[in-house]
């Protein structure tokens, strides 16, 4: 609660001059994903029903110091390319489910910033950080300035993909996707779980997707789950979409031993899955957290761990995540900080 009250939103950019950075507090709560010196792909799903106060897991939807800037970046992407938002026609119930999930969560967890008043179906929503004050009738599309899911989708951080459940499968039939790691909502809309899910090396052979799909088909309302995934990005760019690959592709080869610490960012995705009640769809949120190698290295434990994970990384995974060009530079940059002492298990910074 204190954390929420003190939320100060930064003015910063995720493109052009890249003024994005993390405060000391934001680094401290960064969801560092490596508990061990070796990384293996796994599904590692856990319950998403609250976490330590102040952590990114505390609330269903995390709001942090980058909230206003991230929403502004999303608006820029959508203005440029409206197809980053897609909702197939049979998803209207899911759109309203999302309105409820977002507004209920934010107003309950961040009462200083967001306020929701309900009088039956007459809802009044106030989003102070973004300066939005909207009265509308829940269930009546015509009372909102745009589609319901787009309306709330523009007011949360991270990408949201809504999966319709039918024929014992999940279909990516709706989404607002402006900060993705190299996949396209416009292209992937309507795909089934296996068509759409990033083909991860080694994972298919292990039957991971079959098990994950089965698990998700049984996901229950009221029992959301989460997992972490990670990759690396050059520059603190949210929109590393295939659509804009011509814009960010050249960055990949701009890394040098001199700039690697500031330019290369660990990008951790907090993926949370919620069953939606009216539509029986599943909301899949992919919230990216970015921290530069130098920001992470303010904690010696993380510097050592990151170096070891990257050193031990399976070449297929390195290639798949697109790290080949600069991985060795990151390892070399961190080498002086790694004295080789054994690190205890766990992701904590100190």
């Amino acid at each position, binding site marked *: 609660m204190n954390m929420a009250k003190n939320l100060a939103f930064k003015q910063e950019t995720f493109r052009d001059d890249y003024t994005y950075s993390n405060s000391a507090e934001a680094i401290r709560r960064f969801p560092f994903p490596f508990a061990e010196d070796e990384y293996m792909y796994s599904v590692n799903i856990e319950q998403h029903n609250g976490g330590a106060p102040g952590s990114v897991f505390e609330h269903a939807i995390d709001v942090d110091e980058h909230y206003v800037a991230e929403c502004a970046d999303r608006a820029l992407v959508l203005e440029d390319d409206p197809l980053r938002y897609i909702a197939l026609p049979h*998803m209207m*119930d899911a759109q309203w489910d999302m309105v409820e999930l977002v507004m209920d969560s934010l107003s309950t967890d961040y009462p200083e910033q967001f306020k929701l008043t309900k009088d039956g179906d007459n809802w009044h929503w106030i989003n102070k950080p973004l300066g939005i004050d909207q009265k509308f009738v829940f269930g009546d599309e015509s009372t909102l300035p745009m589609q319901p899911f787009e309306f709330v989708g523009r007011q949360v951080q991270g990408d949201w993909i809504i999966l319709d459940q*039918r024929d014992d499968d999940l279909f990516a039939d709706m989404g607002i996707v402006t900060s993705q790691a190299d996949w396209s909502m416009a292209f992937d809309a309507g795909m089934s779980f296996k068509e759409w899910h990033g083909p991860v090396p080694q994972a298919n052979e292990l039957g991971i997707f079959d098990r994950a799909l*089965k698990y998700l088909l049984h996901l*229950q*309302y*009221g029992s959301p789950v989460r997992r972490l995934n990670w990759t690396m990005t050059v520059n603190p760019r949210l929109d590393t979409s295939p659509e804009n690959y011509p814009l960010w592709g050249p960055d990949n080869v701009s890394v040098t031993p001199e700039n690697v610490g500031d330019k290369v960012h660990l990008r951790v995705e907090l993926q949370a899955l919620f069953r939606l*009640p*009216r539509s*029986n769809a599943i909301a899949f949120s992919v919230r990216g957290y970015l921290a530069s190698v130098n920001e992470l290295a303010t904690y010696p434990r993380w510097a050592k761990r990151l170096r070891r994970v990257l050193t031990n990384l399976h070449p297929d995974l390195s290639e798949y995540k697109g790290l080949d060009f600069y991985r060795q530079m990151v390892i070399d940059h961190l080498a002086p900080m790694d004295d080789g002492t054994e690190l205890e298990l766990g992701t904590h910074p100190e």
Partner: protein
Amino acid sequence: MSVLNVKVAEVEQVTEVVKHFTLVQENGEPLPRFSGGSHVVVSMDINGRIHRNPYSLMGSTANTDSYHISVRKQENSRGGSVYMHEQVKPGSTLQITYPTNLFAISKLGRRHILIAGGIGITPFMSQISDLNRLGYDYELHYAYRSPEHAAFREQLQEMCGDRVHFYVDSEDERLDIPDLLSHQPLGTHVYICGPVPMVKALHLHAKNLGWPDNHVHSEEFTAPPSGDEFTVELALSGMEVTVPGDMSMLEAMEEAGAEPPFLCRGGACGRCELEVVSCDGVIMHNDHYLSDHEKAEGRSIMPCVSRAKCSKLVVNL
């Protein structure tokens, strides 16, 4: 698994054998929203033994001040429905799971044919509230034994208008499934909930008429059949559990303190699937989840309804 503590607000004798229970949350708050076709699992403490039965939610999906379930009294059952009929009164408290939907309307369908036999009408009552709200094209065909067994007939007439058709067995009214299926436009989906022979007949006729599998939906909850006593060894925890003849394997493991996963408890969803390490007899598969091939292989078991005729079954739990 999240549970809800509810209180029985009202009990209505609908027919001689069907009771309708109105449940409200004990803390006075509205219950969670749900989608048409969902069910909850009700826990009952019967003489110190926990029984858990799935029941479809039948109320309107728009109003979650209360949940509505209906229970048909099964005289030969293991006691769950008898307990609901004889022990559960207004004011009684129960524990239920959050709603789960294994019987959802396919949103890509252009027309929906709902077929109910007897107490199988219950999941359709919440589905119809969704279909009406969404303005989808549908028809309900409801067959029951005799006029005394016409549960919810008036309510259905009110909800469905001329979309509902009744078939009273004792008056020689029969639903002609092949005829019904033979003149449906493209994009039609059919849904059935009722006695096993009726469900099997629908699947057979639909297949013969060339309906794709994924246009035919059924919901069948099986009550766990009784059988012989056997022993289960849980390989991972090293626990050994005796499953008495009148208890399901899942219930026996729960009573012994294990926490196996479950969802529908009727052999429909597959959530409780356990890997079989070894079995020195035969597995009696009673679920609707595993394919015939998988059942023959014997590498998995659904402990909610299936059991074994053996001295020892070892599972990976």
